[in-house]
């Protein structure tokens, strides 16, 4: 996410195949019983107050300053096609403020589903990864309380929000409630871009997740465990850069191999785990999630993140209070250039120092350490319309501002808190 070079565009064959299969079903299945269209939209003004940081509502999105109509505005369209009692398909495209504007970054869903029996459902194609409580409807602002899904939790996990693959779900009754068990396998491709347009691509390959959900009366629980292998990391001249570090003899830079391993995600195993709970009795609305991510990779440091939201209904008005945090598992460790023995040629010294300095910048630029306090209000003023206002006060450590644009900031200096004000209108149609 930090090197400067020519971006590489990758054609995603899997999603194209998914789309084509849905399209083929559409055009060849003359017995399609029903086709329905629906959509959602949020139009919001976001005021960002900071001299050095620029704001984005997701790691996948463009960074913005001042007053932005793009940061939190979204429009999505969905098509549901029912072929028979057992077969149906869903496609969903969401236009949002993506930094990398390839088509792939706007397709949220494109799957075919088969329900062989009451309790069983299988899907294939592009699916929501379904790791977290809002995983499968994050873009639909009308569907949740806040201006946007809590940033400390959902900004980073957006990189693995959709999966090209297949899943199996089993639903059964238990203790006056309903239990859903799910297993998913596939590949999740992340496409990011930095402020200068430089693109980053990588895959969560062989992604395998297990999900347990339970819903009873006013309660909802969810737990997920997932793992994947990091592959296909592309950042232009990244491979050459890592090769240069690996080429440094251990006698000159003993940590060089460890530094290169931490930079290079190839083959590293990423692990997610999350639990969530929601209570809503039409008086109180309380929701919380906690999650852990481990990959031993510099670009997405190991971390724990979570949030707690408490709201109280006053008829059609829901004021709420939200606290959240994204904390790294390990303290930031500076990468310093080795003290080289006398007699090493000056050009070698400069090269090693440059490698260490660039790596240090990269590590600081990817480090996330922040917490937030938010106050907001949602007003369902008309059928299918909600007006939302939210104020966020986000405090970051130094370094630790990687969820936002921070190129102009001296990362060793703790930034002043970031205040974000949102006023938006959400609807479904």
């Amino acid at each position, binding site marked *: 996410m930090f090197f400067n070079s020519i971006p590489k565009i990758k054609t995603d064959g899997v999603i194209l195949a998914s789309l084509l299969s849905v399209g083929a079903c559409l055009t060849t299945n003359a017995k399609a019983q029903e086709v329905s269209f*629906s959509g959602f939209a949020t139009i919001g003004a976001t005021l960002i107050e900071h001299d050095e940081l620029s704001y984005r509502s997701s790691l996948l999105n463009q960074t913005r300053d001042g007053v932005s109509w793009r940061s939190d505005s979204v429009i999505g369209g969905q098509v549901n096609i029912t072929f028979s009692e057992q077969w149906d398909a869903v496609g969903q495209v969401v236009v949002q403020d993506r930094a990398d504007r390839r088509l792939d970054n706007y397709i949220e869903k494109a799957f075919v589903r088969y329900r062989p029996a*009451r309790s069983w459902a299988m899907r294939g194609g592009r699916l929501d990864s379904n790791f977290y409580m809002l995983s*499968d409807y994050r873009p*639909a602002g009308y569907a949740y309380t806040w201006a946007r899904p809590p940033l400390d939790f959902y900004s980073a996990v957006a990189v693995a929000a959709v999966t090209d693959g297949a899943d199996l779900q089993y*639903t059964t009754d238990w203790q006056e409630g309903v239990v859903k068990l799910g297993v998913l396998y596939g590949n999740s491709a992340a496409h990011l871009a930095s402020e200068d347009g430089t693109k980053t691509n990588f895959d969560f390959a062989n992604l395998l997740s297990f999900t347990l959900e339970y819903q009873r009366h006013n309660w909802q629980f969810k737990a997920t465990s997932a793992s994947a292998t990091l592959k296909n990391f592309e950042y232009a001249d990244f491979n050459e850069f890592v090769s240069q570090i690996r080429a440094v003899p251990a006698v000159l830079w003993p940590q060089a191999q460890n530094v290169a391993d931490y930079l290079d995600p190839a083959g590293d195993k990423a692990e997610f785990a999350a639990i969530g709970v929601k209570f809503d*009795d039409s008086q109180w609305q309380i929701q919380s999630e906690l999650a852990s991510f481990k990959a031993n990779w510099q670009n997405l440091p190991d971390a724990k993140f979570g949030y707690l939201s408490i709201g109280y209904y006053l008829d059609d008005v829901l004021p709420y209070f939200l606290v959240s945090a994204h904390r790294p598992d390990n303290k930031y460790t500076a990468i310093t250039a080795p003290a080289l023995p006398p007699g090493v040629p000056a050009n070698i010294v400069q090269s090693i120092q440059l490698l260490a300095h660039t790596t240090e910048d990269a590590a600081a630029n990817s480090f996330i350490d922040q917490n937030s306090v938010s106050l907001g209000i949602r007003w369902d003023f008309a*059928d299918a319309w909600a007006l939302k206002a939210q104020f966020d006060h986000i405090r970051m450590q130094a370094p630790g501002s990687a969820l936002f644009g921070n190129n102009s900031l001296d990362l060793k200096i703790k930034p002043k808190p970031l205040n974000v004000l949102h006023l938006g209108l959400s609807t479904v149609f």
Partner: protein
Amino acid sequence: MTLKMHLALALPLIVITLFLASCKAMAESTMKLVVVVNHSNPIDELDQKQVMDLYMGRYTSFPNSMPATPIDYPSNSAVKQQFYKMLVNKDEKKIRAYWSRLLFSGRAKPPMEAESGENIPTLLADNNAALAYVPVDQVTSEMKIVFQFNP
């Protein structure tokens, strides 16, 4: 016309309006709703959880695995408001937010919305998989009651 005269004219109108509104509210609050299926549907009885499962999208078929097509009264109708209040204690706006979560997660589609209450007997008669709620005094010989709320 003086302000007093305006008030003298307006006051009876306000009182009558409030009276009619309260009568309507009382009538609505005492409306007895039942859940019905097509007469030829083999299902004879559902409990409240099973009705909830179908109307809240947790299952898309009856307990005997036969596909189900739940039907809703039109938006903002008194019957629909009362049904969801009795079923899950939520008003229509919260139900719409709930369904937007399910719909846009791709998990399920909301119940079919009838154009009017009068249209529901026809929808039920035309579809063996249909399931609807109606005031008990509107149950016809084409319908079979499978659930009624406790008084």
